[in-house]
């Protein structure tokens, strides 16, 4: 143990390894955010389809929520059979997890658009596509971003499990800290993951704020 009269964290190690820390923090963000972005790109069209054709939603919801409940380590391990020890073993399962959070966001958001709003848009001469893009999807933004926040935070934290297969961003500091019996690395890893997750969450709150000016106007009026 490294506790000769020093605190919880060996700050000399931290300042001496900033480059390494930044490298793995960046890798962690990349491995976490690529799946969320792919998930969003799939969820918007799939969610629109589910909102339009109601029969499609229960099977899609069923499959994605069953996948969501499968342990990350098992899915990463199963991916080795197809992808070898590549980044895909982390990216593909995290994408599947994000679908389970994002598709319901899109569907619930679209379904919550009030009927009078829809009719007003039609009465103003909006076709179905323009109404979807300019009226219905913007109104669904708060619900979609709520799903996006949960997906982003859990994705950032789950990446580290991939370290057991050698693809794990800041998880590197967990296995290295364990092997060297050096808790500083473990504290740094946990601390940075929580900070990155909360920072990404705060950015999404800011994004919602900037994308929904009508909600602000309503709040100011109330």
């Amino acid at each position, binding site marked *: 143990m490294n506790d000769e009269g020093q605190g919880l964290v060996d700050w000399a190690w931290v300042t001496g390894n900033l480059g390494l820390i930044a490298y793995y923090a960046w890798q962690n963000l990349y491995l976490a955010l690529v799946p969320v972005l792919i998930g969003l790109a799939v969820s918007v069209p799939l969610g629109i389809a589910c909102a339009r054709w109601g029969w499609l939603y229960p099977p899609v919801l069923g499959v994605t929520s*069953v996948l969501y409940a499968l342990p990350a380590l*098992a899915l990463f391990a199963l991916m*080795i059979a197809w992808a070898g020890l590549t980044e895909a073993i982390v990216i593909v399962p995290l994408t599947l997890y994000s679908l389970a959070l994002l598709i319901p966001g899109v569907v619930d958001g679209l379904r919550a658009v009030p009927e009078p709003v829809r009719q007003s848009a039609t009465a103003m001469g909006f076709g179905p596509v323009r109404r979807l893009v300019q009226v219905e999807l913007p109104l669904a933004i708060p619900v979609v971003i709520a799903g996006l926040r949960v997906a982003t935070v*859990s994705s950032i934290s789950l990446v580290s499990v991939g370290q*057991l297969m050698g693809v794990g961003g800041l998880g590197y500091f967990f296995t290295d800290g364990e092997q060297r019996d050096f808790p500083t690395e473990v504290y740094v*890893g946990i601390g940075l*993951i*929580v900070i990155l997750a909360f920072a990404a969450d705060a950015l999404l709150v800011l994004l919602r704020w900037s994308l929904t000016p009508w909600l602000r106007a309503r709040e100011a009026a109330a």
Partner: protein
Amino acid sequence: MSALGSAWHWLISAQQWHGANGIPARLAEHAIYTGISLAIAVAVALPAGLLLGHSRRGGFVAVSAANLGRALPTLGLLVLAFTVSSASPAAWLVPLVVLGIPPVLVNAYEGVLGAGEDLRDAAVGMGMTGRQVLLRVEMPVALPLIIAGIRTAAIQVVATATIAAYIGLGGLGRYIIDGLATKDYAMVAGGAILVVAFALVIQIVFTVTGRLAVPAGLRHRAAGS
């Protein structure tokens, strides 16, 4: 897929089904770790969540706990517990319980809150005490959400118990961790299939329990939503 074929061979070969490293023994270990951790997490978080919801206080605490629970990396917590406790054999218990608490806490809180003021007023109007309102009205109404919370916690605990094989715990995660260490990918995939099957069984059990737990008087409400 030849990789899955070899995983299948690994699964059905007779030697996997006997002894301390056999599938039945590992499965039992996994069930015991999950059961103990979940029981402690529920014993702590359920009363706390119910009381917070009933007193309409501490919503911020409950929601923050949920956010923090999602952000905390499971592998990091396990390694931390292991190194800080100087490799104590019980090191796994703390992270498993800690990660099981937030979903139970939040759902109990939200469930009681969601029972609504009307039911609460009616119960008080009938002369019920605060305790009776909570136990006879708010808790039964909140039950489906409470069970959903315990289900989420169970899924989290099963997943974390798998990862805990890295710090030397038994259970089904052993096959994945040992297989990775020895580059025996048939064992890795075979272990992963067992974990997936175990997680599916847990989900089914909770989904069925959740359906049965809806109070008769609320069935129409559940069906309508």
